[in-house]
């Protein structure tokens, strides 16, 4: 077991190391190291999963990392249902995306190519570390590590200003969240006296609920940053500057879901802090809706997917927020497939259209690239929650959970968002793949991608289509399996079957409705979207400009900070005041000096005077005492 875990986690690191150090040797052959490494790791984690399915668990330390007094943190791994599933998901998706990258990155410079695979491997390592760590600090290592890799990979085309900026924006924004996470860890250590999951969760209840609330909220701040929830979601759309496989792996399938995983991992705490759970759910719901609305009008293929990711993450947070952790993770699991898939298809489109992303210029591509197109449709159906595709199952679990755990509002929002989701997804499909081509030239150059790219598409498509059926396994399927760890108390399955089915129908209906509307608007042109945009101009512009959130941040936070630092702190405080005082003292001394010298007239009688006066003075002083 141990060996398999270590294998799963460290093989990618090995690959990264080899590619990193022998960059100049591997060059274009980098994938020969990177991809096998990933598949190996994938196999390892599948083995681990199977062992866990067999009921095995593991919690072991590799070595003592930071031991100072009572503060002892090992490099150790915790394997239970949750982490096993995560391991499997991450390594599986990652493996295929690696494969896909071979085709996608073929035109890169040798050095860039090797670098890319090095970082991608490194990312996978950190991600696997994150999900398999047995203590908060090691998890934080993975947490920061994936952040770093995302920074590097977003900025992969660093000569593009937008890419460089996006990378920095991503890192700094998530770091802002991590600040909260870090302080949360401090608090956990201060009050629980340990950072080991085992110790903390087993004694979770020793603290007052208010303290736990604070801690959980702090942790959630980290999640908000990492998983791109409102208000820290702004980095994710920009992150699309990175190569598309990266967007697919990091910004859809794995990294951004870390926050969800973390909350699920800490369910023991969140169960004790209803208020925090409430916050999680509400933020999730709000973000889901908020992002979906932005996605409605955006014309950038990847941006739409990005906003939909944010929205879907919102769903996951609803899940973990309302207490159906398993459902949240389940959605994470399915989402990994279908969103990963959609990004890859988008990538494949970009690849053949030489980076064109504006879907207004596309159309009818399905004829040119059938595999890409149809796999995308599968993904879209999945995300829209159309049975039997995977999204349907997980989304239903979440919404049902929300409803039955007494969050009707959340349920309504979620359901409505489901409608929006279906709408913008099929808007995307109809604009991109169906209808008549709007740009002949682009249409000309379009063709199907090489198999090395299409095979992963097919694999993931199958995943997106069928992953949902895991829900049907024995004793609650994957949900029940996960619940072994996440120990969800309320089993709503039976007692409200009737209502359950009603909800089910509603959400499916929402999906269908959305698709239908999209069809009529973008194929039948009734109502004509252009007209609608004109009639609803204010709303349209607001949405089109993403609620001006970036602009607000710049105007009210970043610019004041930089300006203040430059002119108030540096130029004024530092240079003028503090250094002014320092140099002022020096100047004062010299002034006194030139004053003193005036007595030195060089004229003997004056000196005689001085001596006499001095004599009198010191005599007086002598008498005085």
């Amino acid at each position: 077991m141990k060996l398999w875990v270590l294998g799963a986690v460290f093989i990618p690191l090995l690959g990264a190391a080899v590619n990193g150090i022998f960059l100049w040797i591997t060059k274009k052959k980098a994938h020969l190291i990177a991809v096998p490494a990933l598949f190996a790791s994938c196999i390892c984690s599948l083995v681990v999963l199977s062992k866990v399915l067999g009921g095995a668990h593991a919690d072991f330390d590799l070595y003592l990392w930071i031991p100072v007094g009572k503060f002892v943190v090992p490099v150790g791994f915790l394997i239970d249902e949750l982490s096993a599933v995560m391991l499997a998901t991450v390594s599986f998706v990652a493996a295929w995306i690696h494969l896909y990258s071979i085709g996608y990155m073929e035109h890169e410079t040798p050095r860039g190519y090797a670098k890319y695979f090095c970082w991608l491997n490194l990312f996978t390592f950190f991600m696997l570390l994150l999900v398999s760590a047995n203590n908060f600090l090691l998890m934080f290592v993975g947490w920061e590590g994936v952040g770093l890799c995302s920074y590097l990979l977003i900025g992969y085309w660093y000569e593009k200003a937008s890419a460089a900026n996006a990378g920095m924006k991503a890192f700094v924004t998530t770091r802002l969240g991590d600040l909260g996470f870090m302080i949360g860890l401090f608090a956990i250590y201060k009050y629980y006296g340990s950072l080991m999951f085992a110790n903390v969760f087993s004694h979770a209840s020793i603290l007052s609920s208010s303290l736990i609330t604070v801690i959980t909220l702090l942790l959630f701040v980290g999640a908000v940053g990492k998983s791109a929830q409102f208000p820290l979601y702004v980095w994710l759309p920009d992150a699309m500057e990175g190569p598309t496989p990266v967007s697919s792996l990091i910004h859809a399938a794995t990294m951004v879901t870390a926050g969800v995983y973390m909350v699920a991992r800490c369910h023991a705490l969140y169960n004790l802090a209803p208020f925090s759970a409430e916050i999680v759910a509400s933020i999730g719901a709000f973000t889901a809706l908020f992002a979906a609305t932005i996605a409605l009008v955006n014309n950038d293929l990847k941006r739409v997917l990005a906003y939909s990711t944010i929205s879907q993450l919102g769903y996951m947070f609803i899940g973990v927020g309302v207490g159906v952790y398993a459902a949240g993770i389940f959605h994470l699991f399915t989402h990994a497939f279908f969103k990963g898939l959609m990004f890859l298809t988008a990538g494949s489109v970009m690849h053949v259209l030489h980076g064109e992303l504006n879907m207004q210029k596309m159309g009818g591509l399905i004829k040119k690239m059938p595999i890409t197109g149809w796999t995308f449709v599968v993904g879209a159906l999945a995300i829209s929650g159309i049975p039997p595709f995977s999204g349907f199952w997980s989304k239903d679990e979440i919404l049902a959970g929300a409803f039955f755990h007494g969050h009707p509002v959340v349920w309504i929002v979620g359901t409505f968002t489901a409608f929006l989701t279906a709408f913008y997804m099929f808007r995307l499909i109809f604009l991109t793949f169906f209808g008549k081509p709007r740009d002949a030239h682009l249409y000309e150059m379009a063709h199907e991608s090489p198999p090395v790219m299409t095979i992963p598409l097919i694999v993931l498509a199958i995943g997106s289509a069928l992953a949902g059926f895991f829900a049907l396994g024995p004793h609650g399927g994957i949900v029940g399996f996960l619940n072994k760890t996440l120990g969800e108390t309320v089993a709503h399955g039976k007692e409200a079957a009737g209502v359950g089915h009603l909800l089910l129908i509603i959400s499916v209906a929402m999906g269908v409705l959305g698709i239908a509307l999209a069809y009529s608007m973008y194929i039948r042109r009734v109502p004509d979207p252009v007209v609608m945009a004109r009639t609803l101009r204010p709303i349209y512009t607001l949405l089109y400009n993403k609620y001006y959130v970036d602009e607000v941040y710049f105007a009210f936070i970043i610019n004041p900070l930089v300006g203040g630092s430059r002119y108030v702190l540096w130029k004024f405080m530092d240079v003028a005041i503090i250094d002014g005082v320092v140099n002022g003292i020096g100047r004062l001394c010299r002034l006194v000096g030139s004053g003193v010298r005036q007595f030195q007239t060089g004229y003997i009688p004056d000196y005689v005077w001085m001596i006499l006066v001095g004599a009198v003075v010191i005599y007086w002083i002598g008498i005085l005492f």
Partner: protein
Amino acid sequence: MMGGVAYPMLTVVTFFPLIGVLVLLFIDKESKNLIRWVAFITTVIEFILSMPLYFRFHLGTYHYQFVERIPWIKILGASYHLGVDGISLFLVLLTTFLTMLSILASWSIEKHVKEYMISFLLLETTMIGVFCALDMLLFYLFWEAMLVPMYLLIGVWGGPRRVYAAIKFFLYTMAGSVLMLVSIIFLYYHHYKVTGELSFSLIKLLATPVPAVVAPWLFLAFALAFAIKVPMFPFHTWLPDAHVEAPTAGSVILAGVLLKMGTYGFIRFCMPFFPHASLRFTGLFLVLAVISIIYGALVALVQDDMKKLVAYTSVSHLGLVMLGMFALTLQSVTGGLLQMVNHGISTGALFLLVGMAYDRRHTRLIKDYGGIARVMPIYSAFFLIATLSSIGLPGLNGFVGEFLALVGTFKSHPVFGALGATTSVLSACYMLWLVKRVFYHEITVTENLSLKDLGFREVVICLMFSIPMFWIGIYPKPVLKRMEPSVAHFIAQVKGEAAMAIEHSPQAKEKMSLAAYLVEERKVEVRP
């Protein structure tokens, strides 16, 4: 006290560079390469000589080790007394390590090579002396003597405003230190009045608590001297000047070692001597530390000169160290201590890298660069590593120290811990922005198109720097294990003695004002 070792290891380590100086004196000043090699080899041997300190260091004891003690000035009771413990051990190693690499990085110096190397080796001796001295007089001797070579290094081999910077550095530090001298003397005679024995021995002086009425003043005198060196918030303005003007290697040593002397002074002298006072002033220093952290970071954010930027980051990082020390928990102090080492390595590396860029383009203005990642991939790779280590990315050294310091601080002072944690965001801001502006984007300045990537020598330097970064980041246990006992003892000293000082501080003098105390002091007849 541990018995000394077979041969006077510390003496050898401290004074070996002087042998190099002697050799250099007899080399013709024109044969520059020979001079460079002699200096470099000296420092390499020096580094090797200092290695046993690490390997033969006994774990699990806070006592000083490798102790040497010979009477020095009998009539004053001063003795030549050296020793290291977990606190100073790594600073000594850091010194030998950084000096070696600094010499290697000084190959580009062409002006007065001989004098340069000589002053550098002298500097090394004085620095090591500061960390090893257990006799207050000896300590002060090294402490002040260190100014001279540094003054020359900045003033002779520095940039355009070097003279201003050098004199500012010298006077600022000296002005701070003289008051410390007075309080050292005071402690010395206080110990004499109490025990009737003249001694400068650190251990003995520590054994005699100071009257509560003067302790705060003595504490402030010490604190001023060290706070200037650190430098803490209001006393930091000499640093940017000194850094910007100093030659690359000078900045490396300045940031890597000299600043540590300040924090070292706090942990070794200031706080153990006056536990009561230091607890009393904890609030003040925590506030100053937090200000240093945030202020330094924000000012660094908006610098146009790379070196100045890095200089201000030192203010921020050292603020973190101070925070950890005054938080007085095992983790925070250990973290602070480790952070001293980390800062030495990462900031040293950053200065070296900036220097390498300067050697090529003779400018340090950020706007003169941009996009050079394409022409200097190796360089940018190493720069990135140094950056990440400096912003405390997990897996590299910076994180361990930073996290320990903060988690410990949070334990005793949650608010300050939380405020201090902002460093993780701010550091990311200024460093990554720097990286972005220097390495990313299109190349705009045409000179940059022809930049050469690092040469062999430079790659070696960078590799040497990266090793400890990863080592401490991934497996810090051996380091922490060596530090822990001394730190624990330090905390016990401060907290324990503080408690004692509150209980039976010298009666009657309790309420007396300082002035009254001094008058009283004067009345005390001096024994012949």
